């Protein structure tokens, strides 16, 4: 079963609905015991990076770290992906999980922020998460901070400079866009994760 981790930040109904649609057994849970038993973990997230502090407080972070060490596939969405990095300028006192190196940053001051809407990916065709996703697909974003492009980036997006739209390393995956809100392309990404 796929655990959709609920740490009190926002609405997880859309993520569950999309995973149901691609035919995966999944459950929204805030119980560390349930997350520990999951075969895959999805960490959604909206709003502020500081809200991820609840993961450390509730013991969910330890359970997620342990699951990742055991090779359980993990997908972070939006702030959930940002949390995979070491930190974010949005909340310098909040530590990320740090499984990916780097810091999430603001958009340049001359750009409207948040970055809301459909923007185009530049897809690295070797990505497992993005297998079968056309190279210049449109996906839906809504965020005020971003992860810089790095060696784990498998899809870039351009908005006041390039940033990481998707990252991937071994069984760790993250998407800055919302696959549950990105039409057929987004459902394909979720299906790819489910089939890993």
């Amino acid at each position: 079963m796929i655990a959709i981790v609920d740490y009190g930040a926002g609405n997880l109904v859309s993520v569950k609905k999309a995973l149901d649609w691609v035919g995966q057994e999944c459950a929204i849970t805030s119980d560390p015991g349930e997350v520990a038993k999951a075969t895959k973990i999805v960490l959604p997230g909206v709003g502020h990076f500081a809200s991820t502090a609840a993961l450390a407080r509730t013991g969910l972070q330890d359970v997620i770290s342990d699951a990742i060490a055991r090779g359980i596939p993990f997908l972070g969405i939006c702030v959930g992906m940002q949390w995979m990095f070491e930190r974010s300028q949005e909340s310098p006192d909040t530590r990320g999980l740090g499984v990916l190196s780097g810091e999430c940053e603001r958009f340049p001051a001359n750009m409207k922020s948040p970055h809301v809407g459909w923007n185009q990916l530049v897809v690295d065709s070797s990505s497992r998460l993005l297998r079968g996703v056309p190279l210049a697909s449109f996906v839906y974003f809504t965020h005020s901070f971003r992860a810089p492009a790095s060696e784990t980036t498998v899809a870039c997006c351009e908005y006041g400079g390039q940033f990481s739209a998707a990252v991937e390393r071994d069984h760790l995956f993250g998407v800055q866009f919302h696959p549950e809100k990105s039409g057929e392309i987004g459902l394909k990404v979720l299906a790819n994760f489910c089939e890993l």
Partner: protein
Amino acid sequence: MLTKRIIACLDVDGGRVVKGVQFENLRDAGDPAELAKIHGASGADEIVLLDISAAHERRATLLDTVQRAARQLFIPFTVGGGIRTLEDAAAVFWAGADKISINSAALAEPTLITGIAERFGSQAVVVAIDAKRCEGASHWEAFTRGGRAKTGRDAVEWAREAEGRGAGEILLTSMDRDGTGSGFDCDLTRAVADSVRIPVIASGGAGGAQHFVEVFREGHADAALAASIFHYGFSRLADLKQEIGSQGIPVRWPC
């Protein structure tokens, strides 16, 4: 490049889609869940469902409508109309909405914007402003209660306050243009869009592709919304997007 969004709006009364001309003379235009799905498949970037039911018993069907519409919709889905409290908003989110739109309740109690934003994130809070040009002047007044009541608030100033209180987007309807098909109010849209950092969705007056091009170019809108031009087959969304794209506006096409 970030594309300009074309948003299809469903005005719903008692579980059926209707569309009025300047908020009156409603006609029946079909099943909301069915129409949401059709619009999504034909290229809408987003769906907005506005419940305009006045009678309380007709509002009870809203959550059921939202749930049915959301089931097969995997693009952003906003629901508005009659949301007065954090609990009302939460019920609409659990039914499957991604964003809620608030109008009268936000004007009456602006802390509601912050309350919903803190719980569900700013990206989930759209503040809708119905604005009407003040006679002979280049400023606009915000109206409430479906355009029936004056507020005395300047629309631009209210948009800035809403942003400061945590709104993620502004849905700006020109009451002067709504339902006329004579084009968006580019002056109003630009006045608001240039005063806030958050995205502004222009609404009211869409009659054809050229109107969208104008409101993106001259009105500085981030998105534009229309209802009636899509519902009765006046314009296929796919054709509309292609036409807008051919004039150099970045749109998501093909989807």
